[in-house]
């Protein structure tokens, strides 16, 4: 179970979100804002459940999230019929990666995809024998694995970290997800209120310098405020906040790059009902591994 301080944090978050929902539905009932706030309810619900489950169930839970994201990615990218088999191996890599996370085998967890699958998947393509498009497909599949399986699985490994001063992996995951989510929201809010200068107009026309800078400072403060969920002192928390804010932004725009490349605006629109997982995990794909290694370097 969660420590009482993280329980209180969750309750406070739900209260804030409930307030935001009420304000949006009563005062600003635009579809865009409604969709945004609804999706935040899903995310909050999803992750609260994820971190409250026992550790084995939590592994299945995060593995399923990786699976959904990878499946959406594989559906979106162009592929040849022969790529199916390579993709099948990529799916098989998910339970193995999460098994290594679940048993806290750090060495295998950290090299299974970047080393072993990196070497194995091209060989699988050799066995299939389709030479045309070999390089593109190898790159596409490996990249998807790195992002949506390797990257996201850091959340799962973080859950298994031993507690230090009474705060353990669950609190760290909560801290990370909370700040990543707030970073997205704050970038949007700062941008809406003060945004004038577009930061990368070619990739993400809605992102502004003001949004980025505003969120950067707010998240740095929030990171210190919420540092009771971590073993950090104030300047370590400040560093974590800055890291999460920048990494979250980069993750967001990198996923936008894929969508621009494929030619869709919103993966959720393309696949209603089942889509939008990529849009939900885009920032986490970057913040999870970076924050994990920040904590790992400082404390483990």
């Amino acid at each position, binding site marked *: 179970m969660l420590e009482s301080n993280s329980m209180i944090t969750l309750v406070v978050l739900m209260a804030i979100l409930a307030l935001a929902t009420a304000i949006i539905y009563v005062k600003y009932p635009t579809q865009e804002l409604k969709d945004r706030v609804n999706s935040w309810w899903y995310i909050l619900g999803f992750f609260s459940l994820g971190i409250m489950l026992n550790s084995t169930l939590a592994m299945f839970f995060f593995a399923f999230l990786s*699976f*959904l994201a990878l*499946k*959406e990615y*594989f*559906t979106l990218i162009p*592929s040849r*019929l022969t790529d*199916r*088999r390579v*993709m*099948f191996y990529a*799916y098989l890599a998910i339970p193995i990666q999460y098994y290594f996370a679940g048993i806290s085998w750090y060495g295998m967890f950290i090299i299974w995809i970047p080393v072993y699958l990196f070497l194995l998947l091209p060989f699988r393509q050799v066995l299939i024998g389709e030479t045309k498009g070999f390089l593109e497909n190898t790159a596409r599949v490996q990249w998807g694995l790195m992002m949506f399986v390797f990257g996201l699985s850091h959340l799962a490994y973080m859950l298994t970290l031993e507690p230090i001063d009474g705060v353990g992996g669950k609190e760290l995951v909560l801290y990370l997800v909370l700040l990543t989510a707030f970073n997205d929201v704050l970038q949007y809010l700062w941008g809406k209120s003060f945004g004038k200068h577009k930061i990368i107009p070619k990739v993400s026309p809605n992102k502004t310098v003001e949004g980025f800078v505003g969120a950067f400072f707010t998240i740095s403060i929030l990171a210190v405020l919420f540092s009771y969920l971590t073993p950090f002192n104030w300047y370590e928390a400040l560093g974590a906040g800055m890291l999460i804010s920048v990494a979250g932004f980069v993750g967001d725009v990198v996923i936008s790059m894929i969508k621009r490349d494929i030619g869709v605006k919103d993966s959720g629109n*393309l*696949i*209603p*009902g*089942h*889509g939008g997982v990529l849009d939900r995990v885009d920032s986490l794909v970057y913040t999870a591994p970076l924050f994990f290694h920040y904590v790992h370097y400082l404390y483990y």
Partner: protein
Amino acid sequence: MWIKKLFFIFLVRPLVLIVAGVSLKGKENLPITGPAILIANHNSHLDTMVMMSLFSLKTLEKVRPIGAEDYFCNKPYKTWLSKNLLDLIPLKRKPTKEEGHPFSGIYNALDNQEIVLLFPEGSRGDPEVMKPFKTGIAHMAEAYPDVPVIPLAIHGAGKALPKGEALFVPFIIDVHVGEAVLHKGESKAEYTKNLYSIVESLEKC
């Protein structure tokens, strides 16, 4: 038909709706009661499973796919599976005179207020390539002009489980249900061609 229900609850629906995943457009065009004829492009064995998974369990009882007798009923175990798991209507691809009207099974089903699934291409083709439609559907529409014919376009099933492959690989399957088409007295060839272009345009949007 409890075996069919169990088969769908525990095997087909989890596989189709969760492992692969269906993204459905035009849900409001799906019939809730029979009689109706659903037609779709055909690339994969998954097509039938996807179409049947779109219905509620209550309606599923009334949903019956049409399959070639020479493929689905050529061995006793296949006949048993087709009958009990899918409630398939077997269709003879090369009917003889003595056996009566080749569509009698389909017409019986329509008379029983059932929803019939048909692939007018006749058989599974290459992934994401549509073959010309056969005119059987025009015969049915002429015989039952009041029964709505509902066109569907399925995209992605041919990637998840192509013809001739046993390995199922998860991809999200797009299904687009179009509005019911009614027979307006056109010729069989015209009707079939029209239906083809409707499915083609559903696939594109």
